[in-house]
């Protein structure tokens, strides 16, 4: 209980403190300190859940089980490393004159607020509060996407706001339908009829037609935020135009949280409709995202945009795996969410440093990183190889599991998936290779990059590819059992 108050209290306090403290010299350190506190609280909460099992807290409004506690730990960890990365990165942005102190104040405060909304969305037991927190996550990042006030960033921010706003409105309608169905079974109990644990207990009695309709709206709504095609068009713009630490947390964390919401809804709906409809819809949207993203990857010339499309592809793959159902596929999907989140944020860290050195995000302007800054170059290369699914990295393990399960359950999907993954490989590798190894006349730049987060992430991804510690495997298995059932 005390852990949860710290988990939500620290980022809330951080948002207020950093808004008051402003952009004084040590604001970036304060931001990192608050993130460290949040991470410590997340660790304590995780230990508690491991020791004592699922926790139902604060008048049943918060619920922590094996599924969301691993996402809480992941979110807090990436939140911490990103705050470490943003410390030198944002200082350089201010030195280059792209930001003024006022905007840096906004950035730090909103960063903490964003963490708060994501952690609330993950830990809440109330489907209505989940909606409120998801909308809060959009609102707290809109002004961060437009932080540079360039015409492009304003357009990206507008698109982000409107598309996610409309999407999330669909999810609200889905939530209303869910409440409507629950009220029939649970009676007019007010808040209790929206609690996930109660809904889960009576899910087989919920009206199937209403829940099927609700799932369509919930999937479209939260799916928009998870970047699923065809509602993905906000994602590349928002990733490319915002500051790089925000690209890293949007890609590494927000997409996961949105997918988490979809999966929570799927568990309820599947228990009610007794048909393959929810699974088929997840598989359909997932496959469409994978294919569309891999085709669009070829046209990208902006490095952040390139990796944003890669995020759509990987979220599609995880969604597809959740759609396959069954413990193995769900295990693979959870693993994929973890390794994608770690790898993609480490890639954005290196890309951020590289773009900052080159003064441009265009692939053609960034050359010869290996001579300019060997560590950034190697970090980017390793991250790229990892995200492309090369062994021995963790993405290989999860993709291998997904493909072998798909081969057994839905063999028709294998050629499509393999082709899409192959295209994505070619599209990304041909852009990144000259960036790292190409010739350059540029001088080495003085400021030292923050590389600890990059290599920490890559080391974990490598470890997960080689060897998953038994307690972690048990944990994933417990979560997979919760979601996948059977």
């Amino acid at each position, binding site marked *: 209980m005390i852990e949860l108050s710290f988990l939500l209290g620290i980022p809330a306090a951080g948002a207020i403190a950093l808004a008051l403290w402003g952009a004084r010299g040590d604001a970036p350190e304060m931001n990192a300190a608050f993130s460290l506190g949040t991470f410590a609280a997340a660790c304590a909460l995780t230990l508690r859940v491991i020791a004592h099992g699922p926790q139902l807290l604060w008048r049943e409004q918060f619920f922590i089980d094996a599924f969301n506690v691993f996402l809480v730990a992941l979110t807090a960890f990436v939140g911490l490393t990103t705050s470490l990365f943003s410390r030198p990165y944002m200082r350089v942005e201010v030195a280059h004159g792209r930001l003024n102190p006022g905007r840096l104040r906004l950035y730090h405060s909103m960063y903490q607020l964003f963490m708060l909304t994501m952690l609330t969305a993950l830990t809440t037991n109330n489907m*209505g509060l989940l*909606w409120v927190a998801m*909308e809060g996550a959009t609102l707290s990042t809109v002004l961060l996407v437009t932080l540079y006030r360039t015409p492009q960033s304003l*357009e990206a921010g507008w698109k982000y706001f409107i598309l996610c706003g*409309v999407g999330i409105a669909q999810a609200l309608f889905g939530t209303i339908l869910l409440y*409507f169905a629950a009220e*029939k079974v649970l009676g007019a109990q007010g808040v209790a009829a929206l609690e996930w644990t109660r809904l889960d207990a009576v899910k087989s009695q919920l009206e199937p037609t209403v829940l099927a309709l609700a799932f369509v709206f919930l999937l479209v709504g939260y799916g928009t935020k998870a970047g699923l095609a065809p509602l993905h068009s906000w994602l590349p713009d928002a990733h490319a135009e915002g500051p790089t630490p925000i690209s890293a947390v949007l890609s590494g964390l927000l997409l996961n949280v949105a997918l988490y919401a979809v999966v929570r809804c799927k568990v309820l709906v599947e228990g009610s409709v007794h048909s393959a409809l929810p699974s088929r819809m997840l598989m359909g949207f997932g496959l469409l995202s994978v294919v569309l993203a891999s085709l669009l990857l070829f046209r990208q010339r902006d490095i952040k945009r390139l990796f944003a499309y890669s995020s759509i592809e990987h979220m599609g793959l995880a969604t597809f795996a959740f759609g396959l159902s069954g413990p193995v596929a769900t295990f693979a999907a959870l693993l994929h969410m973890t390794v994608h989140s770690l790898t993609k944020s480490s890639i954005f860290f290196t890309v951020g440093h590289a773009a900052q050195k080159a003064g441009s995000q265009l692939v053609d302007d960034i050359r010869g990183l290996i001579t300019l800054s060997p560590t950034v170059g190697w970090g980017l290369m390793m991250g790229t190889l990892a995200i492309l699914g090369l062994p021995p990295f963790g993405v290989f393990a999860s993709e291998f599991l997904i493909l072998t399960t798909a081969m057994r359950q839905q063999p028709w999907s294998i050629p499509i998936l393999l082709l899409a993954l192959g295209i994505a490989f070619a599209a990304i590798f041909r852009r990144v290779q000259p960036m790292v190894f190409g010739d350059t006349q540029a001088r080495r730049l003085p400021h030292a990059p923050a590389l600890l987060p990059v290599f920490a992430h890559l080391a974990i991804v490598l470890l997960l590819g080689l060897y998953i510690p038994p307690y972690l495997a048990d944990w994933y298995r417990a979560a997979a059992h919760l979601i996948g059932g059977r």
Partner: protein
Amino acid sequence: MTHVPFNQQLLNACAALMLLLSFAMLSQRRIVSLVNLFAVQGAVLAATTLLLAWRTGAGHLYFSAVLTLALKVAFLPWLLHRLIRRLGVYWDTEPLLEISGTMLAGILIVVFSFGLAEPIAHLASTSMRNAIGIAVAVVLLAFLMMITRRKAMSQVVGFLSMENGLFFAAMSATYGMPMIVELGVALDVLVAVLVLGVFFFQIREQFDSLDLHHLERLSEHQ
């Protein structure tokens, strides 16, 4: 002919008014009038909530009605009018689709909404179950308005009208959502409009206009 109680007739009239106002907004190009129509729609929503509260005796509905009145009838229209005056945007430019075409599309949407709401209305036990189709129609008509308008301000009014439709849906299907959720949603709407206010000034600073066709430079080819 079966006898319909008076307050039921009032509720039906409110539902019809909601739909009528949605069509009025769809055809209105003066932004000031658009905001006024939005305020009236909010007032109808508040009246519906109040009638339902009186009828069912549910305390939280009174609170919800006051919240709607304060936020959607008073504060948001006031804020939007202020923004319009400060930014000097009074007219929307020619919409992407002719008004008559939009209205025709709107009629099709209403038919579709009633089809969509049929299974839900069938199961609902509330006295307003016939209004669920109207609520879905209000949501989708607001969506149509957002698609066909160019000015950022009209899109925002469309967004807020969509929120009205969703509240109306919750009202007609389940007599409203739990209090804590309604409060959270209201907070989000409020913050959204404040964020947008900041955002408008940023757009204006950059382009000297609130016309969204300026915001079309970001293409896939970059």
